[in-house]
């Protein structure tokens, strides 16, 4: 059996020495239960809720009424509880151990924030409820805006984008609207080779063509290349700062100056704001627009892939083009501008149905208030300190991509130290799983060969960092000592062994289907 997506065969026979001594009768492994899909439990007529009878029927709907069975199984409450708790135990989580995914900022998620978001005054609040009944929600949005503007040194913020990439879209739409308002539509967006994939994807989404800017040997934007590529058809430059190599763009002010001189706008990807929050204001660097991932810097939980929130701060030049809605102070308290008319006539449109991720605003605001100005500064300092500590501790056995000078909140290594070992970045990362750690970000940024990008964040203690570094040093030594099986077959001790991603893509099975290929047993007639 061939496995793995990047050409690494891992045959079961290769890894027998470390495989479990026997297979259990249930398919489980001790406390890790083998859990069937909800569709495989014959729950077609079950329900886990008790609802009253409806006192009027749907007979008035005629042929609009659904006749055929839907095909949805149900579970009683105890069965449902057990199903999801069993599944949960197969996940890694920041509450379990270090989650050093570079560029993702997996930090502690305070539970106070969860409690606050669930207050009925926030959670049980309808987005279109009359404005006099939502004054507290608008006040919270107003206070959050004040904090975001103050921390970034920017005059305006659009709260409605729902995630980082949605924020990028918002920023580029504002830039596009600003160029169009000047009668100077432009075609191109410049993006460094080290950028997140969302940057070029967003630029293309908005109809721009993308030109890559080269990187210098020390991991920064190549100013000469930037200057050569800037021109009258360039609408914007998208730069992440600190960049995806974990480095501060030393020439950032010059980058902004050159960009503005060419009549273009400076979009900053704020994914790495955690490294500088409370210490550096993007507004002082010449940024025109920057999204802030509330689910990174301001610690709203990632939830297994969202929801996030991606408010965008805007410069004076772009502020008039911000999308509806936004909060304003009116004669009778706070109100919402919901339409692109009158004073909002230049608004470029609307990013989504309502006002943004209110649940995330509450959490992020609670987090900011808890840390305060002094605490947020300490957040950046400790995040940077932790990353430099990891870099220092691992540099003896692994090869830092940019050994000279400090890094910011991420330590980046390449795979040259693995040369000749037969172990790849992927193998090494999978072996970390056996030690109880989530792998670092791998093969990103693309500009560094076999990249390993480690972001510990400020919420790791020195003790936990030492545990992590000790494990990585020992693993690195094992790789160099030729203990290849330990890596090739890894993980051995996780809930699952390596999964065949090639098979999944070649023969996509995206929904459950009964083995027989027929629809589930229809419901008994009601």
């Amino acid at each position, binding site marked *: 059996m061939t496995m793995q997506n990047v050409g690494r065969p891992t045959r079961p026979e290769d890894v027998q020495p470390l495989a479990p001594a026997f297979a259990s009768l249930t398919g489980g492994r001790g406390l890790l239960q083998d859990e069937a899909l909800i569709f495989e439990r014959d729950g077609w007529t079950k329900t886990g809720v008790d609802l009253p009878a409806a006192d009027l029927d749907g007979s008035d709907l005629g042929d609009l009424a659904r006749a055929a069975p839907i095909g949805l199984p*149900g579970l009683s409450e105890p069965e449902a509880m057990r199903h999801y708790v069993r599944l949960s135990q197969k996940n890694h989580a920041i509450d379990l151990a270090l989650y050093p995914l570079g560029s993702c900022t997996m930090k502690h998620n305070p539970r106070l924030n969860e409690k606050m978001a669930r207050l009925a005054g926030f959670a049980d609040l309808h987005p279109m409820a009359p404005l006099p009944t939502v004054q507290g929600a608008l006040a919270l949005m107003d206070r959050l805006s004040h904090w975001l503007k103050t921390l970034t040194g920017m005059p305006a913020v659009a709260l409605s984008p729902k995630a980082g990439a949605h924020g990028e879209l918002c920023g580029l739409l504002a830039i596009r609207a600003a160029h169009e308002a000047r009668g100077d539509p432009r075609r191109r967006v410049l993006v460094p080779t080290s950028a997140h994939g969302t940057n070029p994807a967003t630029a293309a989404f908005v109809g721009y063509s993308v030109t890559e800017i080269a990187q210098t040997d020390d991991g920064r934007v190549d100013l000469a290349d930037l200057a050569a590529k800037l021109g009258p058809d360039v609408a914007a430059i998208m730069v992440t700062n600190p960049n995806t190599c974990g480095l*501060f763009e030393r020439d950032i002010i010059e980058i902004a100056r050159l960009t503005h001189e060419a009549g273009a706008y400076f979009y900053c990807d704020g994914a790495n704001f955690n490294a500088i929050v409370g*210490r550096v204001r993007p507004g002082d660097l010449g940024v025109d627009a920057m999204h802030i991932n509330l689910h990174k810097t301001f610690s709203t939980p990632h939830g297994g892939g969202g929801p996030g929130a991606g408010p965008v701060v805007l410069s004076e030049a772009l502020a008039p083009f911000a999308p509806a809605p936004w909060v304003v102070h009116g004669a009778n308290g706070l109100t919402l501008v919901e339409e692109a008319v009158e004073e909002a006539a230049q608004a*470029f449109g609307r990013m989504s149905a309502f006002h943004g991720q*209110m649940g995330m605003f509450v959490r992020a605001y609670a987090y900011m208030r808890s840390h305060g*100005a002094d605490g947020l500064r300490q957040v950046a300092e400790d995040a940077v300190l932790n990353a430099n500590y990891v870099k220092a501790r691992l540099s003896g056995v692994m090869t830092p991509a940019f050994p000279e000078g400090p890094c910011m909140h991420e330590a980046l290594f390449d795979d040259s130290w693995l040369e000749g070992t037969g172990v790849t970045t992927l193998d090494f990362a999978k072996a970390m799983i056996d030690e109880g750690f989530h792998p670092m970000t791998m093969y990103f940024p693309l500009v560094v060969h076999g990249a390993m990008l480690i972001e510990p964040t400020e919420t790791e203690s020195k003790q936990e960092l030492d545990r992590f570094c000790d494990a990585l040093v020992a693993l690195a030594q094992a790789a160099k000592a030729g203990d290849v099986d330990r890596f090739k077959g890894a993980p051995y001790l996780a809930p699952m062994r390596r*999964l065949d991603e090639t098979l999944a893509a070649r023969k996509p099975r995206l929904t459950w289907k009964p083995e027989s290929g027929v629809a589930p047993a229809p419901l008994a007639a009601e």
Partner: protein
Amino acid sequence: MRYLPLTPDDRAQMLGVIGAATIDDLFADVPAAARKSETFDLPDHAGELEVERELVGLAALNRAAGAGPFFCGAGAYRHHVPATVDHIIQRSEFLTSYTPYQPEIAQGTLQVLFEFQTQVAALTGLDVANASMYDGSTACAEAVMMARRVTRRKKAILSGGLHPHYAATTQTIAHAEGMDIVRQTVAVDAEAAVVDAIDAETACVVVQTPNVFGVATDVTAIAEAAHKAGALLIVVTTEAVSYGLLKSPGEMGADIAVAEGQSIGNALNFGGPYIGLFACREKLVRQMPGRLCGETVDAEGRRGFVLTLSTREQHIRREKATSNICTNSGLCALAFTIHLTLLGEVGLRQLAAINHAKTRRLAQALGAIAGVEVLTKRFFNEIAVRLPGDAAAMVGGLLDDGVVAGVPFSRLDPHAGLDDVLLCAATEMTLDEDIDAFAQALARRIG
């Protein structure tokens, strides 16, 4: 600073290992002009009690939907969420995990997504569904752009019954990508009119059912007309509970179905986070936006799940990706799927029936008032009523009677000339006494 584990001693030791004298040395790459040495003009750190006090105070300035008779819908619906749902989504392993890029230690999230995708495909009557979008409105915009990729045509026709915010979101995002968006005249029963606008340039027709006025429509004929012209039919639904009672989009010929899934498992949250549902026919899957979870096996041959077909996505394809979406609504999808698993088919159908019955009762009560006209004839759980005057003013007045009467249409679209139209929804949360209180107060104010 309760969230920061390092002690001053730790910091000093660590700086020593690094070989730096002070923390400022680590920020040496920041240009001097941009180093901020003083702290910001913001309050310093605060204890849990202090923060809680401020937020409880702000929350108390709002009137929660549950505080009395409440009839707002228009794309967000108040439903009961079983306690089990909120308990499970707060488990650390779900709440504090990342996108499942390492499948060996993310099978919990991945199996949930696989089950979720299967449930959404079943609800919509289509073959495949993705792992969620931000919300219904952005899912609608993404569906329109997907239709462009599939048909290589630029024109999208939006029905006049499409939620105005969905139309505006689609216009904003799809227009930027160079699409020609034709929004038809807003009207209560506008769906049939889209057929006349379909031509050989049309990439897709977007029809909402139940529409923003609550009107449920059989779109089969629209599907036929669209397909005859080589266009796709996109069916939008803002109330996912309606799937329990009404024919599915797939049964009526939809190629893509998008929906707001908030109604199942998720609170109102003043508009977000919500969850976009996105389903389509199998042959279109490679043009789909967003994450997809698929089945596979591990090195021991055991069934497992991974994110798949990622060659559509931004982290692989960059500027050639089908969408720029990365983070989606994972935890909201979890809430959705848990609630739907608790309901099962039996419970969902029953819940839908209760919603419909409550709304029939509401329509009868309001329709009996002289001067009030119920405009929506075939509805699920929402109706549009015409009042003898300005609906926004009436909502303001009824607030003094303790009734939140609904959403004046003018709030969603001030240019439609429908200032006298009020949108009212009833769900299983609505008490018969709430309906009586609403009808009596309205009759008093009109009379």
